[in-house]
């Protein structure tokens, strides 16, 4: 689960990680009120969406008067912001963060993520803040400092020294501030079961202070049960409504732009099925994993969600039953044809646990547009043919 910048900064502040002061606003008038409350002569109006690259996309603007705050907030609120991380459809801006201006002397980069290979968190820092860090990593990898922290022993002094000397910070007072910053960030990463924290840029002010000017945070979904206060930060408007509806039924759904709807058990086989459809000359309309506990009801729901997509010309149900029993899926298909108007051909391949019973159920039901397939290749070929109207 991801959260907004203003929410990440609330967590930063709780742990004593310094940030500029700011207030979130839902309307231009609230934005003006926020600016007045913050005081000062310069403010930054920042679109709150779950994606990076907001500045380049026109979602971060500088205001030098409260009139300008109002005007910019009015422009940004309600705009569909397209950045290199939102996809071409962009994201609707529903909140802005009004932040006091900062006196920027230098821009740095700092992040904490899990290093899967080392199996421990890694802190990454760079002097090249404010830039696209992937470009920095590709072109000047020596400018990225990486420090692994073993949670068994925690953040030690040497981790801090490697960071500050690596960043070329020589002033003693500044070193101390930066080490405290990184150590607190590591602490909050661990204590909140974060998956990722990225601050780009982390600024040094003319006064020699370090501030998180931006903040992105993502969390381990499996650990949210022990962080109800973070779960509360969930912004459902950032999530795709169909994906969300599917998840309520234990289905994992992602819409794509092809013609063949897919219903598969297991993420790997679901991707493999999409790959096979593609290989056979068709295009998958979605990724749908029915999971390990599929029932007649969830399968019916799956059909309903797939068929909401008007581009779907055929459906391929590909189940290799291990935990999922094929007879349940077969009953789900029957159930679905009663509940939902399944108006496209459905190619069904059921293999594994109780496959013979499932075949019997479908055969006896004798539904017009259900086409039986013997294996994955056969099923994909039949689905591609059906989508082309050749069935």
């Amino acid at each position, binding site marked *: 689960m*991801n959260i907004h910048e203003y929410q990440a900064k609330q967590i930063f502040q709780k742990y004593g990680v310094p940030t500029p002061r700011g207030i979130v606003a839902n309307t231009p008038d609230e934005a003006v009120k926020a600016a007045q409350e913050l005081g000062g002569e310069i403010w930054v109006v920042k679109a709150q969406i*779950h*994606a*990076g690259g907001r500045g380049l996309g026109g979602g971060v603007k500088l205001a030098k008067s409260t009139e300008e705050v109002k005007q910019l907030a009015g422009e940004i609120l309600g705009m569909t912001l397209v950045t290199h*991380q*939102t*996809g071409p459809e962009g994201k609707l801006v529903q909140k802005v963060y009004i932040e006091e201006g900062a006196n920027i002397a230098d821009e740095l980069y700092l992040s904490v*993520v*899990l290093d*899967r*290979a080392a*199996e421990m968190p890694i802190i*990454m820092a760079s002097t090249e803040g404010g830039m*696209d*860090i*992937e470009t920095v*990593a590709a072109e000047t*990898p020596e400018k*990225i400092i*990486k420090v692994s922290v073993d*949670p*068994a022993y925690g953040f030690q002094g040497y981790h801090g020294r490697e960071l500050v000397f690596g960043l070329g910070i020589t002033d003693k007072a500044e070193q101390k501030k930066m080490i405290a910053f990184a150590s607190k960030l590591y602490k909050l990463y661990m204590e909140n*079961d974060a*998956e*990722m924290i*990225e601050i780009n840029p982390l600024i040094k002010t003319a006064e020699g202070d370090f501030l998180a000017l931006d903040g*992105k945070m*993502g969390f*381990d979904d*499996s*650990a949210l*049960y*022990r962080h109800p206060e973070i779960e509360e930060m969930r912004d459902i408007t950032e999530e795709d409504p169909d994906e969300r509806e599917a998840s309520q039924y234990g289905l994992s759904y*992602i819409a*794509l732009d092809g013609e063949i709807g897919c219903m*598969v*058990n*297991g*993420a*790997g*086989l679901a*991707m*493999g099925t*999409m*790959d*096979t*459809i*593609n*290989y*056979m000359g068709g295009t*998958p309309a979605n990724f749908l994993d029915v999971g390990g506990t599929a029932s007649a009801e969830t399968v019916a729901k799956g059909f309903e969600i797939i068929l909401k997509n008007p581009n779907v010309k055929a459906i391929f149900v590909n189940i*290799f*039953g*291990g*935990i999922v029993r094929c007879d349940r899926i077969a009953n789900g298909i029957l159930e679905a044809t009663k509940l939902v108007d399944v108006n496209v051909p459905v190619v069904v391949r059921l293999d*594994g646990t109780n496959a013979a019973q499932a075949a019997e159920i479908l055969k006896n039901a004798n539904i017009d547009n259900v086409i039986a397939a013997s*294996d*994955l*290749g056969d099923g*994909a070929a039949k689905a591609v043919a059906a989508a082309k109207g050749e069935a």
Partner: protein
Amino acid sequence: MSILVNKETKVIVQGFTGGEGTFHAEQCMAYGTQIVGGVTPGKGGQTHLGKPVFNTVKEAVEATGATVSMVFVPPAFVGDAVMEAASAGIELAVIITEGAPVRDMQAAKACAVKNGMMTIGPNCPGIITADECKIGIMPGNIFKKGNVGLISKSGTLTYEGANQVVNEGYGITTAVGIGGDPIIGLSYKQLLQMFQEDAETEAIVMIGEIGGDLEIQAAKFIKENITKPVVAFIAGQTAPKGKRMGHAGAIISGSAGTAKEKMDALEAAGVKVVVSPAEIGKAVKEVLS
């Protein structure tokens, strides 16, 4: 021959008396696995499925001599359960549980390594040595005895791959589902080495997915160490590029983790790479004939 487990292997079940634990322990016993007991705290002294229940793994190991544990405890307690197994002298923990917090698995894995315990999973179908020992949730009847070793991140693709190998007239020595979570136990490298050393295994099927760089590391390892033929499939060639918030993930490994990148690396290592999982069986036939 086979790797890691066989008909002599003594297995306990952690989370023995729960719904999942009971159903799958029963299936494993029916397959021939030597389930010698189980652990459910507070139910020690009872008998379940005709086997003794213990309060702690330590007691279970002392009483039964078990060396492997199949873990079915709920996600919130799985880290604790794995550490308990490691400290009790279990040699291999097969962790089926899905949805374990990453931080807990990180600590559990570190504890396992320190105690010399191997782990498989979490969030995986388990391990099966055909006709001898099934420790996990896979449908056992697919896995006919033969000469092909199988390693897979994905559960259902394990079944798909094994089924095709069998339909082509070959069979399986041992199949291992390693899981696709951020922190996993045994991975491609260690298992490839075990299959390389296993006299009975003549070819290896390796099934991967987009994300991470384990398959890239495996490709390097195969080039230098594996002389047996390897067939590989990487799922997710048509998966859309994920919508991401930050960039940090891809920077650590220097790899974007795309299917193409992995397929190219494996091909360069001499692996027979198939573009559809429907081709796995045929490819195995090709490398073995």
